[in-house]
């Protein structure tokens, strides 16, 4: 029975040690798009300050916000990274669990790019082309018909005669939302399909009709020309290795790390880069956020310092480390820095 005694005492010892020790590292979770930026900052933060290196987890924007809203206390996370804005349902859940003070910190913008294999021909796309290639229903002679386009050249004579095969982010990705609203919807409106959907919709009022038409525009082909990827960009890249004629949707920073394999398509004549996205010329981009649990400032050591370090010019400024890695700097960074300094809690969503 000595084994049993030993193990029981070992467990007891562990439990006591756990109670005695307070958490001294930050816990961060959320968007896998923000993850590489957050790890870069965490690494530099741990290296150059006396605080422990924060522990950064991925898992997705929605999952991260949910974890943030689990409550206040040492075994809940301190910051949720998010590639889409927090939803009212999250805020409500946070309130019920006692998380009342959340700081919203916009860290910059992420560009979304279309890329093909470096060995193939170059693409110059417009939202119309993309919609005509992978939208489920397109307008033809004033009526909505199923999309049957086989090659890019059929969509737009200026594009290469290459089979249409697009790997787009799955619906659970934050990236998909931007892809839907900034590319598919634009193309849908430009080709007249939106108006046809609007005329055909059966919604109760104008708002409902608009919503229905938009949702119809977001539908993509199910005949294999458009493939949803639920995994990471690495999965998209692996699928493109297997299908060299395919087109993939990536984040700008992922593309910039893999320029040896990929070439980027221009959108409406603009090549995506940190500069063109910052100036707003390149249309497909979205803001990235950190949601900070203000109630943990002063409780978990280093929380405010980490957020300040993150939004410092050295990191996310025009010449910062993250900008060199592919993050698009926020022109209103100074306001964000001031808000972090003053620990401003976010107001209600407009």
């Amino acid at each position, binding site marked *: 029975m000595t*084994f*049993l005694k*030993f*193990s029981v005492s*070992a*467990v007891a*010892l*562990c439990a006591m*040690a*756990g109670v005695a*020790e307070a*958490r001294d*590292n930050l*816990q961060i*979770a959320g968007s*896998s798009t923000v*993850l*590489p930026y*957050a*790890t*870069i900052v*965490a*690494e*530099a933060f*741990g*290296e*150059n300050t*006396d605080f*422990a*290196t924060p*522990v*950064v*987890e*991925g*898992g997705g924007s929605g999952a991260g916000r949910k974890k943030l809203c*689990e409550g206040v*206390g*040492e*075994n809940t*996370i301190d910051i949720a990274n998010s590639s889409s804005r927090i939803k009212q349902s999250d805020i409500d859940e946070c309130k019920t669990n006692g998380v009342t003070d959340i700081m919203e910190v916009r860290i910059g913008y992420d560009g979304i790019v279309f890329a093909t294999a*470096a060995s193939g021909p170059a693409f110059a796309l417009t939202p119309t082309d993309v919609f005509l290639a992978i939208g489920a229903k397109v307008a033809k002679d004033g009526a909505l018909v199923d999309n049957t386009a086989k090659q890019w050249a059929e969509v737009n004579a200026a594009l290469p005669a290459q089979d249409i095969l697009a790997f787009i982010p799955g619906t659970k990705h934050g990236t998909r939302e931007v892809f839907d609203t900034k590319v598919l919807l634009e193309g849908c409106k430009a080709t007249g399909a939106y108006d046809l959907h609007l005329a055909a919709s059966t919604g109760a009022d104008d708002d409902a009709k608009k919503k229905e038409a938009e949702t119809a525009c977001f539908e993509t082909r199910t005949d294999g020309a458009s493939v949803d990827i639920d995994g*990471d*960009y*690495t999965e998209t890249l692996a699928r493109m290795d297997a299908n060299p004629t395919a087109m993939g949707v990536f984040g700008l*920073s*992922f593309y*910039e*790390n*893999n*320029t*040896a*394999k990929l*070439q980027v398509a221009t959108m409406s004549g603009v090549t995506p880069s940190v500069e063109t996205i910052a100036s707003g010329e390149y249309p497909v981009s979205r803001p990235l956020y950190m949601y900070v649990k203000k109630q943990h400032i002063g409780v978990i050591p280093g929380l405010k310092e980490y957020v300040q370090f993150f939004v410092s010019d050295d990191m996310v400024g025009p010449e910062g*480390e993250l900008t060199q*890695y592919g993050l698009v700097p926020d022109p209103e960074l100074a306001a964000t820095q001031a808000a972090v300094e003053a620990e401003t809690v976010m107001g209600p969503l407009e």
Partner: protein
Amino acid sequence: MTDVIAGAVPAAKSLIEPDARTRARNAAERRFRMMGIAAILIGLLALVTLLASVLGNGLSAFRQTYIEMAIPLDAAVLDKAGDRDPEKLAKVTTLGYGKLIEASLEQMLADRGVDTKGQTAKQLMGLLSKEAASDLRQMVLAKPDLIGTTVTFPALANGRVDGFFKGRVTMESAARDSNISPEQLEVAVLMKEAGVIKTSVNWAFLTNPDASELRPESAGLGVAILGSAYMMVIVLVLSLPIGVAASIYLEELAPKNRWTDIIEINIANLAAVPSIVFGILALALFINFLGLPQSAPVVGGLVLTLMTLPTIIIATRASLKAVPPSIRDAALGVGASKMQSIFHHVLPLAMPGILTGTILGLARALGESAPLLLIGMVAFVKDYPSSPPEGFFDPASALPVQVYSWTQRADPAFAERASGAIIVLLVFLMTMNALAIVLRRRFERRW
């Protein structure tokens, strides 16, 4: 046979020449043998393909390119006050050390007469890892006496330069790569010729912690190996005594009735439960209810204990069953108590089987990743956990989840690291399995 009876005169049969039916039976056996060999070949082919792809991608992770240079640690830069006060020394950030390295690099290239092809200082610094400044800073902070002297410092080369000397990056791909240019690589080639760039065994891969996307070249398995080791200690300390105690009771002491039957069936069921279910249980029970910390080896160890217990109980019961009843009877016959017969005779004889089962259970737990996904161990953890028992509660990573998180990184250099991590994991697993086989061979007894 009916032919023999039916025929008036049985046909003379040769014992040497097989008849048609014998030939058919022999052919059927040959076909079956061939199928068996084919099945084994398919299995081997799968193994060889796996090993070839993992070794082909991952072996290069065990070598690393360094740029060796002499760095004068200028006291005017690093210690303005001149009193070697650790707090003041820590004020100099990696930016300050980076400038020091930049100056030394330029100086060294000029001294060695390496043609820099008109590359700017910033472009030359691109040949070095961003980790170099941090390494140098740590070296100085650990030993402030070095300030004022000139140290020989092997700086990590950038992941692209490292990849170039390993054949992963070519001049062609560099021309399209925004992170490195062919001109930079040409300078690197000249530096190699001048003996400045060296490739050596990468022990840091086994000891370094994880690193961010900016410096894949410094990423290592240190935290993951520690985390896995901590978890294995917890699994061993908990599951072996609990599993053995449960098996002894069920096998030797418990009455055989409906309750013990139900328990027995449920243990077998538990062994077949998918591991992700244990992860969900751990999240609900250990983290949300008991309030244990996230990403901590203690939670991982507890959930893996739950997973390993059925394996150990089943193996232990099988080896207890294999001990012949005559040994128990003999012990009881000379006046030993039930407990004495178990602990003096049955358990020692069953020990090899128990240990084999335990090691196989541990090997399975070591390679398990699914339940760890849910308890926050797939995280970027840069700090080493402290020594046990406090370290059990510090955030850590684990070998299989480190593989998972590296395969998701954008920089292609991480693919090499992921394969390298798989090799390390396979080596651990093979060692454990080999140990189990040796134990069984050496100590197993047959009656």
